């Protein structure tokens, strides 16, 4: 290369890095500002949960006295009971729903049977109805089965899991992208359908499995409206969101506000941890399934 050419290349190179630097800086500034805006409420809640000089809402953010009192006081309420309720419910829903969804998706992706298309369309249309519409009739049915109030946790589990088969779209889309010749090879080697799913498809679909588990876990973890409706008037059947909501009533907010924040932090913990570790798969799961419908 001649000197001129080298110089030209270097110039171009420098220009490129300089302009990239500028655009990167701009992007980082925007992202930082946005993340600060998004994080402020969470930081406030964390800070409030460590404030011990008063228990009501105040006009400042940084506590004047720090301590664990709010977390310790949670033990004097039904909080851990609600927390366990929610946790058990979320774990069981995550397991059952994932199994159902994956089986459903595999079936619809790989099997060809009569009424397959109409069934899929039927479920699509069913899924378009707002779930809230069914709330009152579901309440009546559960009440007659004795699955409300004290027994609302099994009742809720039934409701969460019962309709989960209809949420097959994303994972079916993902399974469709896996070459059928893999299945066929395995079948030729003597594997049955179940073995194909477990040994071939699932290992290739880690992101979608994790995505399914995560979304299944999140549903019960954050449910409020239905959980509140069917657990009415009993502390034992409440989930954590419903239980803590009462602390914000007019007569309790002055006493329980900082404890509410502490509870909020504890509720956010498992979900945050899950997302930190599984974030990579989560994004892959959403985008992976979108290749083919």
């Amino acid at each position, binding site marked *: 290369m001649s000197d001129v050419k080298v110089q030209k290349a270097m110039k171009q190179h420098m220009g490129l890095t300089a302009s990239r630097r500028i655009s990167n800086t701009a992007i980082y500034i925007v992202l930082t500002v946005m993340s600060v805006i998004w994080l402020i409420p969470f930081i406030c809640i964390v800070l409030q949960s460590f404030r011990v000089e008063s228990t009501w809402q*105040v006009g400042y953010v940084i506590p004047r006295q720090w301590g664990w009192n709010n977390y310790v006081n949670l033990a004097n309420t039904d909080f851990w009971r609600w927390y366990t309720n929610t946790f058990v419910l979320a774990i069981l829903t995550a397991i059952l729903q994932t199994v159902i969804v994956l089986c459903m998706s595999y079936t619809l992706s790989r099997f060809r049977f009569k009424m397959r298309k109409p069934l899929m369309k039927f479920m699509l249309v069913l899924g378009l109805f707002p779930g809230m519409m069914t709330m009152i009739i579901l309440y009546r049915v559960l009440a007659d089965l004795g699955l409300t109030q004290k027994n609302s946790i099994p009742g809720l589990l039934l409701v969460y899991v019962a309709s989960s088969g209809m949420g097959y779209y994303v994972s079916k889309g993902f399974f469709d992208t896996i070459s059928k010749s893999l299945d066929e090879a395995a079948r030729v080697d003597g594997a049955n359908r179940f073995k194909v799913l477990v040994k071939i498809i699932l290992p290739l679909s880690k992101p979608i499995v994790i995505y399914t588990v995560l979304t299944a876990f999140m549903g019960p973890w954050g449910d409020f409206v239905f959980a509140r409706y069917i657990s009415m008037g009993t502390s034992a059947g409440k989930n954590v969101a419903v239980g803590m909501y*009462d602390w914000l009533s007019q*007569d*309790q907010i*002055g006493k329980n506000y900082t404890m509410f924040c502490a509870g909020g932090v504890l509720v956010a913990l498992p979900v945050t941890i899950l997302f930190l570790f599984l974030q990579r798969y989560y994004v892959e799961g959403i985008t992976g399934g979108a290749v083919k419908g």
Partner: protein
Amino acid sequence: MKKLISLVLALVMLAGVAAVGEGFAASYDITVWVAEEIKELTAQQIEAFNSSNQYGIKFNATIEAVSEAVAADNMVNDVEAGGDIFCFPQDQFARLVKAGALSKLGVAASEKVTAENAAGVVAAAKSGDSLYAYPLTADNGYFLFYDKSVIPEEDIDSLEALIADCEAAQKYFAFEMQTSSWYLASFFFGTGCVSEWTTDDAGTFISVRDTFNSPEGLIAVKGMEKLVKSPFHLSSSKADSFESNAAVVVTGIWDYELAKQILGDNLGVSDLPSFTVDGEEYHIGSFNGCKLMGVKPSNDAYRQAALHFLAQYLTGEECQMQRFNAKSWGPSNLVAQASEEVQANPGLAALLKQAPYSVPQGQIHGSWWGIAQVIADDVKLATDEAGLQAALDNYQAKIEELFTLDNTALLFVGAWNGWNNADTDKTYYLASKGDGTYALTFDVPESGYMGGRVVNPGSWDTDKGFAQVTEGADLIQDLGADNPDNNIVFAAPGNYTITWDGEAFSIVKN
């Protein structure tokens, strides 16, 4: 032989009588819903009842913390699953009666409750002529909380002075106006306006006497104008506003402890101030409400009677005093109210000082809260007296709407159209005859219940029916209490013409 049989029968009858006397003596599993803060106290009180009652009743009570406001919602959602005994704020009363969630008090209990409790509170537990609940507290009113380091003692009786002090100190005057009719009405009560609603035995609102739109009402909004137009007015009723730069907060006894914690010795409490319009002074009024305790209806008469004994005990003088001592709940019982301890409580003392200017909160239509609330916004935006008057006119128009049928579309909904109140088919619409009357000629088909009433399509709120029939009463059935929905129920099928003149129906058989 006959003698023997009659002897046996007589013995059986006697045994029956004896059984009635001992019928209560049993153990009952019950659920009681009370506020979180009195959960333990209530458990102790039920224990005390178990060991002291003369009937041998034992309650095995599950006590759940359900706040009063939530309890009413829960009961209306599903009465069957509700608590056997529950507490609620009085504004939920009419709704609960209508939902069939409250059982009526017996004659003896009614007399005792009426004699022992403050009159305003008893009125709050009445629908028609019957009592449906037991008074629990009489402290649901509001008064003035202020910061002594900002407000000098001599200014607390004047609204204008309070506003001036707050503005000078750059601190807020928190008095909920734009966001709550409960507080907003105080100015109107101060000038003698009333809003009195009447319900029938079934808990349905049938009429109102409302004088907010009057010369006195105009004075009230002039006073309100001074407050809401101040840059330091804050529409809030939370004691923690003291933390965020408020010097005056109007709230109730439930915030006393919190305010005391925030302000310490600087906390002052008093009755509400007066405002001056055209040289005349008006003391701001207030709502004076209460909490009630209700007993859920039960199929088992003994159980229900036993529950009523318990509710009566829990709302008696002794238990009210215990709640006052433990949690400063202001008693509704007259003897408890007069006791030295109650009189010495600063918050309750302020409430009692405000009492002469307060209005007992009777039954109020659920829509009123939303309608009245708008006044404060309108007043804030008004630039002159005409604007203030317009706010009141607007209010009155909306109140009248609650009880008026809109004559542009009148549907005779009933068995004949499958009770479809959103019917768009004009078959059962009353048509205008051009002289201010509306008429419909139609066939009533033979059916088990040939009833219906006139509504505006799509709504059940402003219905007219049986009570408005003046002519042709012989053609319809008078079902009395079996007709809570005010339906016109025809005695026989046939072709009828029904005419509405804006106030009454006349029915003719063709």
